[in-house]
């Protein structure tokens, strides 16, 4: 084998030397003679040409062959090096050319460079618990600052994703910041105990001043941009713990926009279940006719004279009428609460001819209620492209595309990392991705091919694009 290769190499080198030494007219003859001789060498070494055209390899063109191949390898190498040295000297001294200062080299197509599957990096940051206030028997407000004591920056209505560990399992939950987004006002979330809710019970029972919470965010677009010059009427419908983001928006707007007013329809089971009951009544006193709060109780005390029942279509219609709320074509509506209440609110508002674009809603779903997307159950290759550069990433079984991307060191946007804010939206270019449902992606976004990297797991090879914001 080795001897055969050496003989063939010498033959090629001799042909190359002859082609360089003789006039061009001889080249076809030399080439033919080379191919003939190669065939003889192959045959005499017992290497018959392959009968299949697909397996036959084209001979290297004569012009590309190096005549130095005739010489022993060591000597040929030295001559080649001397040739390069001479050409280096010649180009600088004779031609006045310096070698290019930059190295240009072919780079592998970035999608071909695949990072190994790695552990998800730490995405959360610690916040310090500086105070804990019990709002009702089943709800607690947790006051937070950044780790260094500085206030948390957020837009009214935004939420934090909080990681808690229960029985060795990491649970991620969204809790809205319920304080107004104003300087010097302490920031807090309010957590209502949910029956059998592992995270809400843990926080209600054990959280104490001095503790640390691991969070992501603030995130979410259920928010307003308060401006002192605004003169508007905001109509809000809240049920139970859905009051938390509403409370933040309501108080911020009332304090910043001196000519705006707010009407809140707020449904609860009983009078003692009303979160922020005292705070709301204090605000009513402070702001007079700029704030109307209309409580609806499902199971009211005997002295109750207000509306009774759940926030159904009928009750909502009757309350809007009773409160004399006429739509002026500009009003914005904010709704947050249990799913049946949200659906009823949509029916009522749609019936009043209010465009969906004027209705903001925040949906909280308990992760236990989600359909658990597990992906394909094995490691898959995902190509992530951003700004024209492609990166191959291995997504381990169970990992989300976001987790694997961050683990591989990619700059992928994200905020809540639980399907609630859309910051990690990517366009699916190829393949299939399974997402945890429900999430915040709209039908229109789904139709345009978007998926959420934070709750999306590949079902096979996938290509996604991170769009520049």
């Amino acid at each position, binding site marked *: 084998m080795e001897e055969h290769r050496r003989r063939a190499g010498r033959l090629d080198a001799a042909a190359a030397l002859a082609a360089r030494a003789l006039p061009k007219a001889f080249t076809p003859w030399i080439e033919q003679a080379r191919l003939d001789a190669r065939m003889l060498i192959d045959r005499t070494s017992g290497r018959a040409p392959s009968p299949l055209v697909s397996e036959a390899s084209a001979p290297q063109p004569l012009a590309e062959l190096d005549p130095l191949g005739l010489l022993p390898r060591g000597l040929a190498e030295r001559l080649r090096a001397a040739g*390069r*040295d001479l050409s*280096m000297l010649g180009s600088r001294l004779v031609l006045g050319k310096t070698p290019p200062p930059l190295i240009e080299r072919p*780079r592998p197509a970035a999608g071909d460079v695949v*990072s190994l599957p790695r552990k998800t990096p730490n995405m959360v940051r610690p916040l310090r618990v500086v105070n804990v206030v019990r709002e009702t028997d089943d709800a607690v407000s947790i006051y937070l600052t950044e780790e260094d004591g500085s206030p948390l920056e957020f837009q009214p209505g935004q939420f934090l994703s909080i990681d808690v560990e229960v029985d060795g399992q990491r649970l991620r939950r969204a809790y809205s910041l319920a304080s107004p987004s104003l300087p010097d006002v302490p920031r807090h979330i309010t957590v209502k105990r949910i029956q059998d809710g592992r995270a809400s019970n843990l926080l209600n029972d054990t959280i104490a001043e001095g503790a640390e919470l691991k969070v992501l965010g603030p995130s979410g677009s259920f928010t307003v941009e308060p401006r002192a010059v605004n003169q508007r009427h905001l109509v809000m419908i809240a049920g139970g713990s859905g009051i938390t983001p509403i409370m933040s928006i309501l108080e911020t707007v009332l304090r910043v926009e001196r000519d705006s007013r707010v009407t809140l329809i707020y449904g609860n089971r009983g009078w003692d279940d009303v979160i922020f009951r005292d705070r709301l009544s204090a605000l009513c006193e402070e702001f007079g006719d700029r704030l109307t709060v209309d409580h609806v109780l499902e199971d009211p005390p005997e002295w109750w004279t207000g509306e009774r029942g759940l926030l159904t279509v009928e009750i909502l219609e009757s309350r809007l009428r009773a409160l004399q709320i006429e739509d002026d074509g500009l009003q914005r509506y904010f709704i947050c609460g249990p799913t049946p209440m949200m659906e009823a609110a949509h029916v009522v508002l749609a019936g009043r001819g209010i465009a969906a674009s004027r209705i903001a809603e925040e949906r909280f779903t308990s992760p236990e209620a989600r359909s658990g997307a597990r992906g394909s159950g094995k490691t898959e290759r995902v190509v992530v492209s951003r700004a024209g550069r492609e990166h191959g990433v291995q997504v381990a079984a169970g990992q989300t595309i976001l987790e694997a991307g961050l683990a591989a*060191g990619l*700059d992928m946007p994200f905020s809540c990392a639980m399907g609630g804010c859309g910051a990690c939206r990517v366009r699916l270019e190829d393949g299939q991705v399974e997402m945890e449902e429900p999430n915040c992606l709209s039908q229109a976004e789904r139709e345009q091919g978007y998926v959420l990297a934070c709750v999306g797991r590949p079902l096979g090879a996938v290509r996604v694009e991170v769009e520049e914001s």
Partner: protein
Amino acid sequence: MLSDKVLDNLPHEIRRRLEPYVEAVQLMTATNNPKVLRSMAMPGVRGLILQRGKQGVPTTMPSHHRVYFDWTYPNDQPEMRNLYQRAKEGQWNGDDLPWHIDVDPENPEKPILPPKFMDYESLRNAGIRLTDLEERRLNASVASWMLSQFLHGEQGALFAAAQVTEAVQFFDGKLYGSTQVVDEGRHVEVFHRYLDTKMNKLYQINDNLFVIIDALIQDSRWDVKFLGMQIMVEGLALGAFGTMYQMTNEPMLKALLKMVIQDEARHVHYGVIALRDHIRNELSDAERHEREDWAFEVALLMRNRFLSFEVYEEWFEHKLTRKEWAKFVTESPGFALFRQVMFKRLVPNLREIGLMSDRIKPHYHRAGLMEYYDGASANQLSGDQLIADLDAA
């Protein structure tokens, strides 16, 4: 110097072609030690005249050292054993650096090098006016060039560390050396990844740096390899990384350099403890003098490497002479600080291992490098201390 006068009287184009060769001859004849001249002459020809590092093909270099085995596995150097323990505990994964950070080398908010790194005023006096954008681009080019040379230096260090591990006679030193090989591999990985994915620009190896690497890789004497790699190249790199760490406002690079500096501090420490007794007690006067002169020659090559002629060739080759560029770089405040910090780290180490006798001091004086004589040497400084010093500065 006569050759400078001759050059000054030549037409620009002829001068441009001849200047590099004149510089090379001046540099190689700076020593009057024939043994040093003999050991550096061929690397000098290969690097400065034939520019082997820029020929566009991989470079092969024969190695001539002897591999030293010891089948009794002695615990012969407790200080090196200690370093080995620290090195094992100090291992880190380059993938854990914050690669998600977007880097724009021309972003004036987070410049890799400070905007006043170079003295653009003196460039204007030489008739070259750059716009703000061009100044930012030139700064980014210098940063890429510097990081490219760090990368090439780390490739040299990777192979030199492997050779030194083979050649050293201390068994604890071999164990420690194995960690340095891994460290250097990681440094090549992270510098290359940074240049490739963040800067998108890679410069050719500087001819002076090539000469140093060529000389120490091909030298058969283990202590010369140590001196070249552990003391000179690593010592100067430590100073250069530290200066860049202090100067840069780019958070990704800062995080990268912080990790690299902590490794480098160990590498130089190892060089000092391996050479200290050997040079002081086991070498003859003539041998010691030769090492001393060799180190001085390498110090000059390192000084010249920072003249960054590759950037000159990219930007100003037909606008300035090499001499004008060298003056501009030498007087630029950023480069001046680099030089100062680098030699501040190097000179005390040479003193500690006994290569800074009275006979060589005048040479360092002339090169303006003696002011750093009293600094702390690497065996008196840990990586954490270095970072704390840099953060406090």
